[in-house]
C-alpha cells in the first residue's frame, strides 16, 4: 500500500493520472504534461510536494552538528529564514541525499530531504545527531505545495493576510518567512521564481483550491521533471547517488572547503579536488530528432559515459540531458539511441533560465 498525501483525493477529482513515486501515489499529470510545463514557464503552476520529508533539528549545538553533517557551510546562514542547498555525504564522499537547510534560530534549523531516501536519511541523521545532543523530529503532519512561475508569487500574495503578504513581498531569493500558519520559502525546483509553501495538512486542500481558483495550474511530477532538468537541477538517484561525489555531479558549487570544518566526506573530496575527478557531469543537447533517455551510452574521445537524466525539453523543442563522461576534452560526442549513434552538443547548463533558452543551448 503506497503512501498518500492529504491532496490525493483532490488530484483524483482533477482527473490526474497517478503513479508510484518513491512509495507515494502521486500525480504524474492532470492532462497534457507539456501544457503544465508551459504554464509554469509562462504563468504559474503548482505541485503537491507533500511527499518530501520535513525534519526539524533542535538543540544548543545544532549549527555545529550541521557543520559536520553537510558539505556546504551553514556558516553562510546568518539571517533567520535563509536557506542553503547542500549534499549530505558518506565517509567516502558519496552523496547520501541532497537537501535544503533553513536557518530559523541558533537552536533550531529545518531541513527538507527527498521522499525516496527518507528512511536512510533519518537513520543517518539520527546516528550523527547523537554526538551533538540534537533532537531530530520528522514533521509528517505538514504538507507542502510548490507554486512556481513568473506570476506565482503575485498569485500567492493575493491569498495572504496583509501582514504576511508584506513579509513575503520583501523576501529575497532562497529565504523563507512564516505567517498565516504557513512557512513560505522563496525556493523551487523549476528555474522559475515562486514559493515552496509548507502548510499544516488540515489547511492544505483549502490552500490548493484557493490557488487553483486564483488561476494557478495544477502540474504533475512529469512537468516537474522536465522543468528541473531544463533548469539544470539534479535529481537524486538519477544524477547522483552514494557512489558519486558532488564533484562528479556538477555540484562543486555546493561544496565549501572552508578552513577547519571537518564535515563527513571532506577527506575524499580534498583528494579528488587535488587530483581532479575522473568523471564529470555535462549537459547535452540533441539537435536531431529523438529523445535522450536515462541509461543511453555516450561515446567520447576518452571512452564511454552514460545519460543520467534525459528528456524532451518542451521549452527548446528538442532533447536535453545530463551525462557523466570521462574527464578531459571529449572531442565529438555521440549518443547511442537504439543502435544508432547520433551527434550531440556538450553545453553549459542550465538549459533554460527565467523562461528563456540560455546562450549556447
Amino acid at each position: 500500500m503506497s503512501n498518500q498525501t492529504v491532496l490525493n483525493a483532490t488530484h483524483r477529482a482533477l482527473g490526474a493520472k497517478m503513479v508510484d513515486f518513491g512509495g507515494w501515489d502521486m500525480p504524474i499529470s492532470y492532462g497534457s504534461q507539456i501544457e503544465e510545463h508551459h504554464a509554469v514557464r509562462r504563468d504559474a503552476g503548482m505541485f503537491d510536494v507533500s511527499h518530501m520529508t520535513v525534519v526539524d533539528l533542535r538543540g544548543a549545538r545544532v549549527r555545529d552538528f550541521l557543520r559536520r553533517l553537510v558539505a556546504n557551510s551553514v556558516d553562510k546562514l546568518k539571517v533567520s529564514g535563509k536557506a542553503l542547498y547542500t549534499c549530505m555525504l558518506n565517509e567516502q564522499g558519496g552523496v547520501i541525499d541532497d537537501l535544503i537547510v533553513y536557518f530559523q534560530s541558533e537552536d533550531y534549523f529545518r531541513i527538507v530531504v527527498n521522499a525516496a531516501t527518507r528512511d536512510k536519511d533519518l537513520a543517518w541523521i539520527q546516528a550523527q545527531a547523537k554526538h551533538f545532543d540534537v533532537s531530530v523530529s520528522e514533521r509528517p503532519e505538514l504538507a507542502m505545495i510548490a507554486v512556481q512561475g513568473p506570476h506565482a508569487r503575485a498569485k500567492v500574495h493575493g491569498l495572504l493576510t496583509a501582514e504576511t503578504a508584506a513579509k513575503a513581498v520583501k523576501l529575497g531569493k532562497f529565504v523563507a518567512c512564516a505567517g498565516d500558519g504557513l512557512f513560505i520559502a522563496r525556493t523551487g525546483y523549476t528555474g522559475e521564481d515562486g514559493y515552496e509553501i509548507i502548510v499544516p495538512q488540515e489547511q492544505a486542500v483549502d490552500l490548493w483550491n484557493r490557488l487553483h481558483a486564483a488561476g494557478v495550474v495544477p502540474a504533475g511530477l512529469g512537468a516537474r521533471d522536465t522543468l528541473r532538468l531544463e533548469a539544470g537541477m539534479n535529481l537524486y538517484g538519477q544524477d547522483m547517488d552514494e557512489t558519486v561525489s558532488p564533484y562528479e555531479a556538477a555540484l562543486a558549487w555546493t561544496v565549501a572547503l572552508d578552513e577547519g570544518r571537518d564535515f563527513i566526506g571532506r577527506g575524499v573530496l580534498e583528494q579528488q579536488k587535488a587530483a581532479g575527478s575522473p568523471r564529470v557531469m555535462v549537459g547535452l543537447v540533441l539537435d536531431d530528432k529523438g529523445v535522450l533517455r536515462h541509461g543511453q551510452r555516450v561515446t567520447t574521445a576518452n571512452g564511454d559515459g552514460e545519460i543520467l537524466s534525459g528528456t524532451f525539453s518542451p521549452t527548446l523543442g528538442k532533447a536535453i540531458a545530463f551525462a557523466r563522461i570521462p574527464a578531459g576534452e571529449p572531442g565529438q560526442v555521440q549518443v547511442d539511441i537504439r543502435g544508432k549513434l547520433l551527434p550531440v552538443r556538450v553545453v553549459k547548463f542550465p538549459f533554460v533560465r527565467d523562461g528563456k533558452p540560455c546562450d549556447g543551448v
Partner: protein
Amino acid sequence: MKEIPGDLKFMKSHEWARVEDDGTVTIGISDHAQGLLGDLVYVELPNVGDTLEVGAGCAVVESVKAASDVYSPVAGEVIKVNSSLADKPETINEDAFGDGWIVVVKPSNLREDMDNLLDPDAYLEQLEDEDE
C-alpha cells in the same frame, strides 16, 4: 474514452490494423495507448520498402515520459509512412484512429494475420481487465 471504429482490429499490445478497399493495411496505435504514453514528441518511422513481420517492431513512438515500440499486426511491405508525424507527433494524441495513422502495408498473409487480431469488443474487454 474515444469510440473505437468497428473496422479496426487490434493487437494486445495496442496496435490497430484496418484493411482498406484496395487490400492494403493501415496501422496505428490505439487511443488508449496514446493516453498511457502521454504527450508524444517523436515518432521513428520505418522506410518505404521495409519488410515487416508480425509482432516485429515497425516504428517507435516516444512521449516525454517513455519510448515505446510499435509492433506490426500484419506481415508485408511498407508502402507508405505518415511523414507528417515527423513535425506533428501530437497528431497521434489528437486522433489516434484517424490522422494519427503510422504506416500502410501491402500485406503478404492478410487473411490469417487479420484473423489472429482482436475485434474491438475483445480489445475493450482486455482494457477492462487491465484496469482491474
